């Protein structure tokens, strides 16, 4: 075997421009990706900020004054805070109960229950809210109807068109966020910690209360904040359940500002405090979590033993199924019933059965076909571009390719706490006039979805990259591959399942998006969620049910396909 001549050094000696000599040829890609995401975030937020400070007379604080002396607007803020607080509390209760039961006890049928939690997570809250109007409308709602005919009572059991009803529905679709945080932490607590208490004489319930619970406290707080922020940003559920009862929230109020004559300045001024509040909450969370050293929780985790529920095993299972029937079984059942019947409130007999809703939704109603096409086009496009950009960004921060990549993470993750409707206000202002006019096309929705879903795609790919040893990639580079080539040949193939998961998370996120879409669509660029919302305003119950089932079916198909391709459960059991 011959040893090479001087080729290598010759290459190094190759004359190049002095300044460029040492420049990594892939650098423009990284700088480009970073600049792109910063632009994506800064333009809409900057637009909101600037717009909130101007009216016809020029620079002014008048908009803030207008917004914050108007009683109705203050009421909307107050409503939102109350709702979000209780949603946070209830979501933490349900989420931590299920998270603990599924990771630390011998509850039966865990896999199926996880799948049901997943289903709650995938169900768009506006669809759940719609289903609950059919279930628990005070007079015609089926549950109330049954209750009255069973008990002969005059008053309804439960009126969904109230603050309580709204809180309830938002909570049952927010708890999966808390669940996944708690389940992850519980998975990491080793039994040693619990055994230590056991030896000192604590019984198993006492251990759960005094050891396990405090250890999960940071996750509980984090879960509360996530659920709080999630409910803060929801638009569909409060619009469907709150407005009929005269309850405005911040998001519905912002939406109302867009009605003719549009008050973009007020919408912007209304958005800024919301933005500041969410940033404040995140900062608070960081601070509170940072102070306590729960390093044991993050340890490798010794062996885990499951708490025996004993006699309570099946009663507890029943309780769990009861909770999940609120978010999954009952709503899905009523949607299916509404889709297949002429009159949704009557029993689904042969006389009442019809395919007409499907025919109407898919063929007669003019908007649907274009909207379905738009939705899937946008879903695929956003998921693909989003995964690609997220991959590049996660790569930058993971390998610290650029100075200040820590701050880059802040920009990428920012949309997580920006309510979709606020983002949409910014995008609407930014992209309705030159130099970049995107309004009126699906591209403005694309930009909105890309921005909104970036944190999810990023955190997925980031954690995947973290698990890939950098030396695998260094080994590629040292024998002659540049960074992009290394990424393509080694890192991406190894990150495959994580990237597929990121893709499908984004896709599912996009097809259910309503709160940003509702401000950004035009008749030419409608999406399914907007069509559902339009149909709701017109009371087209059967057609809504059909389209809702379509959304759910596609989401579940994607999940099944991913699990089949990747060969494991990438959604619920995240590591």
């Amino acid at each position: 075997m011959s040893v090479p001549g001087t080729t290598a050094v010759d290459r190094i000696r190759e004359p190049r421009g002095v300044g460029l000599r040492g420049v990594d040829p892939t650098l423009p890609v990284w700088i480009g990706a970073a600049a792109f995401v910063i632009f994506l975030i800064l333009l809409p937020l900057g637009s909101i900020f600037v717009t909130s400070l101007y009216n016809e007379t020029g620079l002014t604080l008048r908009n803030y004054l207008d917004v914050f002396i108007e009683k109705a607007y203050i009421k909307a803020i107050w409503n939102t805070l109350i709702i979000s607080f209780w949603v946070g509390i209830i979501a933490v209760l349900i989420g931590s109960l299920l998270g603990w039961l599924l990771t630390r006890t011998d509850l039966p049928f865990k896999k199926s229950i996880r799948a049901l939690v997943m289903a709650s997570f995938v169900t768009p809250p506006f669809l759940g809210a719609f289903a609950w109007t059919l279930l628990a409308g005070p007079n015609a709602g089926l549950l109330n109807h049954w209750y009255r005919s069973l008990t002969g009572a005059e008053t309804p059991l439960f009126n969904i068109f109230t603050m309580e009803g709204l809180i309830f529905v938002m909570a049952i679709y927010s708890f999966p966020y808390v669940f996944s945080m708690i389940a992850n932490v519980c998975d990491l607590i080793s039994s040693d910690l619990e055994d230590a208490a056991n030896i000192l004489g604590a019984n198993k319930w006492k251990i759960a209360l005094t050891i396990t619970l405090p250890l999960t406290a940071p996750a509980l707080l984090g879960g509360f904040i996530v659920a709080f922020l999630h409910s803060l940003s929801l638009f569909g559920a409060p619009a469907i359940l709150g407005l009929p009862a005269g309850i405005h929230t911040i998001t519905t109020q912002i939406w109302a500002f867009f009605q003719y004559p549009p008050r973009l300045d007020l919408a912007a001024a209304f958005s800024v405090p919301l933005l500041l509040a969410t940033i404040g909450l995140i900062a608070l969370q960081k601070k509170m979590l940072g102070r306590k050293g729960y390093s044991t929780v993050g340890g490798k985790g010794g062996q885990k033993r499951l708490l025996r529920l004993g006699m309570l095993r099946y009663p507890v299972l029943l309780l769990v199924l009861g909770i999940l029937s609120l978010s999954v079984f009952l709503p899905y059942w009523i949607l299916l019933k509404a889709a297949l019947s002429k009159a949704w409130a009557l029993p689904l007999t042969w006389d009442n059965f019809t395919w007409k809703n499907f025919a109407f939704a898919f063929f007669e109603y003019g908007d649907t076909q274009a909207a379905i096409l738009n939705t899937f086009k946008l879903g695929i496009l956003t998921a693909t571009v989003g995964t690609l950009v997220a991959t590049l960004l996660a790569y930058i921060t993971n390998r610290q390719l650029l100075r200040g990549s820590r701050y880059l993470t802040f920009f990428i993750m920012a949309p997580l706490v920006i309510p979709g409707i606020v983002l949409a206000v910014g995008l609407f202002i930014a992209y309705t006039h030159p130099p970049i006019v995107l309004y009126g096309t699906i591209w403005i929705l694309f930009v909105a979805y890309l921005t909104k879903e970036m944190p999810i795609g990023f955190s997925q790919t980031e954690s995947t990259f973290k698990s890939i040893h950098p030396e695998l990639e260094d080994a590629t580079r040292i024998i002659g591959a540049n960074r992009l080539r290394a990424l393509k040949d080694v890192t991406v193939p190894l990150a495959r399942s994580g990237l597929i998961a990121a893709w499908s998370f984004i896709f599912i996120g996009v097809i259910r998006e309503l709160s940003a879409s509702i401000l950004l669509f035009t008749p030419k660029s409608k999406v399914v969620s907007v069509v559902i919302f339009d149909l709701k305003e017109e009371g087209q119950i059967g057609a809504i049910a059909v389209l809702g089932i379509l959304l759910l079916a596609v989401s579940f198909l994607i999940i099944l396909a991913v699990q089949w391709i990747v060969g494991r459960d990438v959604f619920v059991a995240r590591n």
Partner: protein
Amino acid sequence: MKKSPNFILCALVLIWASNSWAQDAGVIEAAKKEAKVVWYTSLAIGSSTALAHFFMKKYPGIEVIVNRNGSQRVLQMVMQEATAGIKNVDVIHTSDAGHFVLLKGKGLLLQYAPKAAEIFPAGFKDRDGFYYGMRATLSVIAYNPKIVADKDAPKTWKDLLNGKWSGKEVTAHPGYSGIIMTHVLALVKQVGWEYFQDLAKNKLHIVQSANDPAGVVASGERPVGVNGAEYFYYKTLKQGNPIKIVYPKEGVPLVVSPTAISAAAPHPNAAKLFTEFILSKESQQVLADKEGLYTGHPEVTYPKDKPMLKDLKLLAVDADELDKRNAEIKKRFTELFGA
């Protein structure tokens, strides 16, 4: 089986061509080249879709894109697109006549004199020739006879204020519906805002579209509708749902819903053709027969089970006033009812 409708169609076309409708062949030709007409309409989904299909059968090759939404949303769309310089809409139709005063004032409408409208009464025509009343309906009271006995049912607007209806009434929203906008203005002029102030005490269920109360009443979710599009109540009733319509003696708000062509219409010829089509006697008759609407066309006949307009005390409102008081009405209504 297939032949007969085609045959009827051909016959209809012949009748059209021969008498009332001597449309310039040039417009049809140009419209076919444009191949498309985009219609922003507040006419109920089923009705607008049916009308569009009717048109497409008549003029194969010209596609009607229907965008149905509430009147106020239609206006919002039109204005947002105008502001952003997007040219999408050809034909605009809402139930809020005030919108057309506004759009006309902003120079967003095309002046056009459809031949079909020559025969329409003055109340259905803009004096400057920018818009025409395509249909008319009433805003009425309705109740569910399965839940509310006829003798207990409200007969007048004032009856709705009775405390026994607390939690049992539904209203549509003037911030969405032009019909309700018209309804509120008509009643405010008749009995004042105090009426709505009192009404709000009954904790109404608030829906958006003037068509939506029909479903809410029929399902029994709220057995009494304090307003709503009469034609949609009528259609729902005809489908066998438990609904009874009340035409209050104090007066019934009459809602004339204009149609106009956008000044920036990307398909102006198709828009003209479509406008001729929807104002033609045959289309207007279809609206009366199939949709339960009233029209401005003097030759159209109406179903026997519907009252004749001339037998009712009608409350008409002025389009200019609708335009001027639009914001005020939305704001006060929202203040009273919460959303």
